[in-house]
C-alpha cells in the first residue's frame, strides 16, 4: 500500500483531532503543526504505528519569527519512513521567554546532537536532554547567535574604516 499524505493526515486527525493544525503540502511535503507539549505524543504515534513507521529523524532545527508574539520560536522536525521512503514535517511553536520543549532523544538517537545545535544557536531549552550544552560555538558565548536580535555586523569594531565597509561615512 502506498503511504499517501491524505492517509497520514487522516490517521493523525483520527488520533489527535483538533491538535493537528496548519496542514499544508509545499512541494508535496506534508507539513503540520502540533501544540508544543504534544510533540512527543505525536512523534511516538508516528514511530510506533505499524503503517506509518516514521523511525528516522532526518533533521531538527529551529526558526526565529520575531514578529509572532508568544510563538516566536519554531522547532521543526523532519521525519522519514525509510521503508516506504515518505517524509513529513512537524512544527511546534514556543514563546521565546520560556523556550522549554520536551526532548526527542528518548525516541530518536539522532536528536541528541541536533538538539544541542538548536540550543546552541537559538536557545531552545530541551527538557530532559542528557547533555544540553553548546556543541559548535565557544563555551564562553553568552548569547544565541542565530536569533534575529542582533545587527549582522559587529558595531563595536573600531579597526575597520567605516567608509570602506558601508557603515555610514560619506557614501
Amino acid at each position, binding site marked *: 500500500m502506498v503511504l499517501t499524505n491524505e492517509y497520514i493526515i487522516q490517521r493523525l486527525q483520527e488520533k489527535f483531532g483538533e491538535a493537528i493544525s496548519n496542514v499544508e503540502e509545499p512541494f508535496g511535503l506534508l507539513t503540520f503543526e502540533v501544540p508544543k507539549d504534544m510533540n512527543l505524543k505525536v512523534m511516538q504515534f508516528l514511530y510506533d504505528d505499524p503503517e506509518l513507521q516514521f523511525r528516522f529523524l532526518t533533521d531538527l532545527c529551529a526558526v526565529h519569527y520575531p514578529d509572532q508574539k508568544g510563538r516566536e520560536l519554531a522547532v521543526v522536525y523532519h521525519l522519514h519512513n525509510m521503508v516506504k521512503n515518505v517524509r513529513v514535517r512537524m512544527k511546534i511553536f514556543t514563546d521565546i521567554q520560556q523556550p522549554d520543549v520536551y526532548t526527542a532523544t528518548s525516541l530518536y538517537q539522532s536528536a541528541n546532537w541536533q538538539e544541542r545545535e538548536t540550543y546552541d544557536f537559538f536557545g531552545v531549552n530541551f527538557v530532559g536532554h542528557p547533555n544540553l550544552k553548546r556543541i559548535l*560555538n*565557544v563555551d564562553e*558565548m553568552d548569547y544565541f*547567535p542565530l536569533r534575529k536580535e*542582533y545587527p*549582522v*555586523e*559587529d558595531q563595536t*569594531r573600531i*579597526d*575597520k574604516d567605516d567608509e570602506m*565597509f558601508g557603515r555610514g561615512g560619506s557614501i
Partner: protein
Amino acid sequence: MARPVQYNVKNEGGKIVTIGDMPDGFQGEGFFTTKLSQVVGLARKNSIWPLPFATSCCGIEFMATMASHYDLARFGSERVGFSPRQCDLLMVMGTIAKKMAPVVKQVYLQMAEPRWVIAVGACASSGGIFDSYSVLQGIDQVVPVDVYVPGCPPRPEAIIDGVMKIQELVANESIRRRNSDHYKALLESYGIQ
C-alpha cells in the same frame, strides 16, 4: 672525474652576480670585527624555519610559495617544520574561528624564543570578510604579530615579500630585545608568562 664548475667563476656572458652585504664593522689584515647582534642576525635570517598554520585558501597560496616555481627555499626557509618546538616563524594563513584561537595561542606558546609571527591574508590579519560571531577578528587578539600580508588570498609574491620583511626584522633585531622590559610588557599584554 670532477664536475666542471661553470657558473660564477668564469662568468661567461657577463651574468650579473649579486653578493650579499657584509655587516658594518672594522677590518684589517686577517681580522674583522663587528657586533655580535649582526652576526647572529645574519645567521638567523637565512635559516628561518617556518611553521605553517594553514586553515584555508591562503594555505593553498603558501603551498605554491613553497613549491618549485616561487621556491621559498631561496630564502633559507625550505625546512618547514611541523613541530612548534623546532620552528622560528609561525605563519598563520587563513580564517581563524574563535574556537581555534586557543589552539593558535597554544602553538605560539610551544615555540621557543626567539619567535616571529606572520599573519597571511585578510582573515588572519583582521577577520577579513567574516565579520561574524564565530570568527576571530585578527590573530593579533591572541598572539603578537610581526608582519601582516594583505590580500584575499595574497599571491605567492606577496607571501615572499612578507617573509623578506621578517628576514629584515630578524637581521636587525638586537640579541637583547627578547630580554627587554618592552618585550616583556608586550607579552604581558597578551597574558603570556
